[in-house]
């Protein structure tokens, strides 16, 4: 099944940022960030995406990837 992958762990690794630090910067709970990181989320708000891009200094395309059906 095709899905959108959130490449949060890759960006965090590049920026050498830990989950608790990112959670504090973005203003989300670690639990919610984990849901996002593990591709369990059903939707993402623009405000969250905006905050993530600001905290990680990246573009939305750096965080999201479309995985095709095999």
């Amino acid at each position, binding site marked *: 099944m095709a899905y959108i992958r959130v490449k949060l762990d890759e960006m965090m690794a590049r920026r050498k940022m830990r989950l608790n630090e990112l959670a504090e910067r973005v203003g989300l709970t670690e639990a*919610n960030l984990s849901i996002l990181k593990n591709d369990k989320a059903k939707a993402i708000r623009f405000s969250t995406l905006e905050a993530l891009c600001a905290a990680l200094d990246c573009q939305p395309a750096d965080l999201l990837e479309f995985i095709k059906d095999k």
Partner: protein
Amino acid sequence: MKNNIQVYSRRLEWLSMLLIPAALGSLIFKWFFLKAPGDGIFCSYYARLSYDFAMVDMPLLFRFLGLLVDGIGFGLLCLGIVLFIKLLHRFQQGEIFSLSTISLFQRMGKLLLCWALYAPIGKTLAGLVVTFNNPPGHRILSLTFGTDELTNIFIFGFFVMLTSLMQKAYQLKSDQDLTI
């Protein structure tokens, strides 16, 4: 501390558990021990028919048939009660709005709707079984479909529709929970 739902669920669970053997007892009593259809409180329907039949002369086979015909409706109702007990058990565990409770509501609604649909057919068959041994011309086959039956069908139909709405609401809630 237990909340109101848990306290009332426990009481209702006990009441529902008592209801099944009581209803089963009344069903068996009705078909095997009652002498005449108008004798007891359980036979108000047959009393209303006021025909000159009597269960005294009913052969055992027909009593079993009567029990079977009534038993189908009773079985549906009992299954509904069993599901209700399961639901109350979940409520006691603090599980109020989950996928399994909604599924129980849905199954209960469908069973009760089947019961409401079967009720007029069951009454017709029971009337026939009771009067089958009467002399020709005194046997009854009457299908009653009145306000009582329609009200039951409407209520349980509405209940089934509500459970579909609950399922949709649960889906929206879980989507909302997973929106970050």
